């Protein structure tokens, strides 16, 4: 375990992937569960066999709010909870719709939003509602 990159914690590795342009989540080699938030071992089977796996990031808006208390000069923005099809829920924002037009049940796909200081995962609405 002298390789410094292997000693990074799961949180740092998650954001490191994002900085490198990849939305990756841990999947458990033993029980195949997709894990989020990142952990040091699988929360279901407790095996420390989590593998970073690039994601297509398709999912459905589980809930959403338009935040009206914003930094000076900024418009209200959307915050959503997204149920990814791989079985995890994460916070995000639906980026390609006006905040007030985001709806629960919308189908979305993840994308890395490039930013010098804070790259992050955002979502774009795609055609069709959840079945």
């Amino acid at each position, binding site marked *: 375990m002298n390789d410094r990159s292997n000693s990074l914690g799961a949180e740092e590795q998650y954001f490191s992937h994002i900085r490198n342009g990849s939305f990756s989540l841990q999947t458990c080699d033993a029980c195949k569960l997709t894990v989020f938030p990142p952990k040091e071992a699988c929360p279901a089977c407790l095996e420390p066999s989590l593998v970073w796996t690039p994601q297509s990031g398709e999912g459905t808006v589980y*809930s959403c*709010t*338009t935040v*009206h208390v914003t*930094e000076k000069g900024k418009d209200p923005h959307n915050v959503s*909870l997204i149920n990814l099809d791989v079985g995890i829920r994460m916070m995000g924002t639906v980026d390609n719709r006006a905040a007030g037009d985001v709806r629960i049940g919308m189908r979305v796909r993840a994308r890395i939003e490039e930013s010098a200081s804070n790259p992050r995962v955002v979502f774009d609405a795609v055609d069709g509602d959840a079945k």
Partner: protein
Amino acid sequence: MSSNLRGKIAITGVGTAGCGEAPGRSEIELLGEAARIAVADAGLKMSDIDGICTANLNVAMWPLNVIEYLGIRPSFIEGTNIGGSAFVAHLMHAMLALDAGICNNVLVCYGSNQRTGTFGRRERGMARNSLDPAPYEAPYKLFNPPSSYALIAARHMYEFGTTRRHLAEVAVAARRWAQLNPEAFSRDPLSIDEVLAARMISDPFTVYDCCLVTDGAGAFVVTRADRAKDARNKPVYLLGHGTAASHRTISCMPDLTVTPSVDSGKRAFAMAGLTTSDIDVVQIYDAFTINTILALEDLGFCKKGEGGAFVENGNIAPGGSLPVNTNGGGLSCVQPNMYGAFAVIEAVRQLRGSCGERQVQSARTALVNGNGGNAAASQSTAILGTEDVL
């Protein structure tokens, strides 16, 4: 759950201080005044206090600050902090310590100057976000706590057809109770239409769906039932209790429409040997209007999804079928960042029959439901009663 702790302890003293605005006074000073009033109300001296339960959102070792300030030497020291429900949760810890004979008189106390303090709510929020970051949420710039509860409310509306008008009913009911309480901070008339038309904070919440931001301190004294008989005031007994928690951040709340009150309430009712129909008055930690609806459902006062309909037509307001938040709650009475102690104090005052115009006639049982942690994360339920229901 074993119910051999039912009725083993009683609240014998309550006190508040600086509720509303208390400019120029520190948190520990406000706490000190409330503590002094509560101890005197229990007919005790500060030197009789040998157990302490307290929490504060800014100070890591707060029980030590309180012990030093009050000049006490407690044998039971409790600083559990699970958010604003902590002071309801402390009742169970006090109960265990008292029943085990570790101590005789436990003081539960809280104080905050978040409204007028020079290191105010905004600065504290920023400091806390640095010390306790939510790395998977922070990039999305929530305005917390409102945004987390707004996500809950939006999902509740989607699943059950709850409306913004239902939420507004909760705010208006709280205000109508506050109008009967001379100690309440916000007592101006408030209509459903005014709630709906007010400044939006985080959709679906307007400013009136969000609790107040006030200063204030609250304290109460808990003792064993055998010692409570000599108290100056009518003792209020702890009949049942439960605490539950499942997450810290809203992203990790398993089902946004179901709070851990489902578990805390079940445990509390089981210990008390009571059901919802036995409860005369209810104090719910109403950080946001949706909290009241969630708690009524999760505690079993109505079915899941029917909380909106339950609060319609003033049903929890003065004159309604179930008196809820008779002091005006955190929405209209007082909310110094952590409200749990104030919900307990109002329940005690109702069971003592000392609530004046807002008194619920012949109230013998009260339920207190604490909420904590930015996202309905922790819930603590206490069922209190007079001697008649022991």
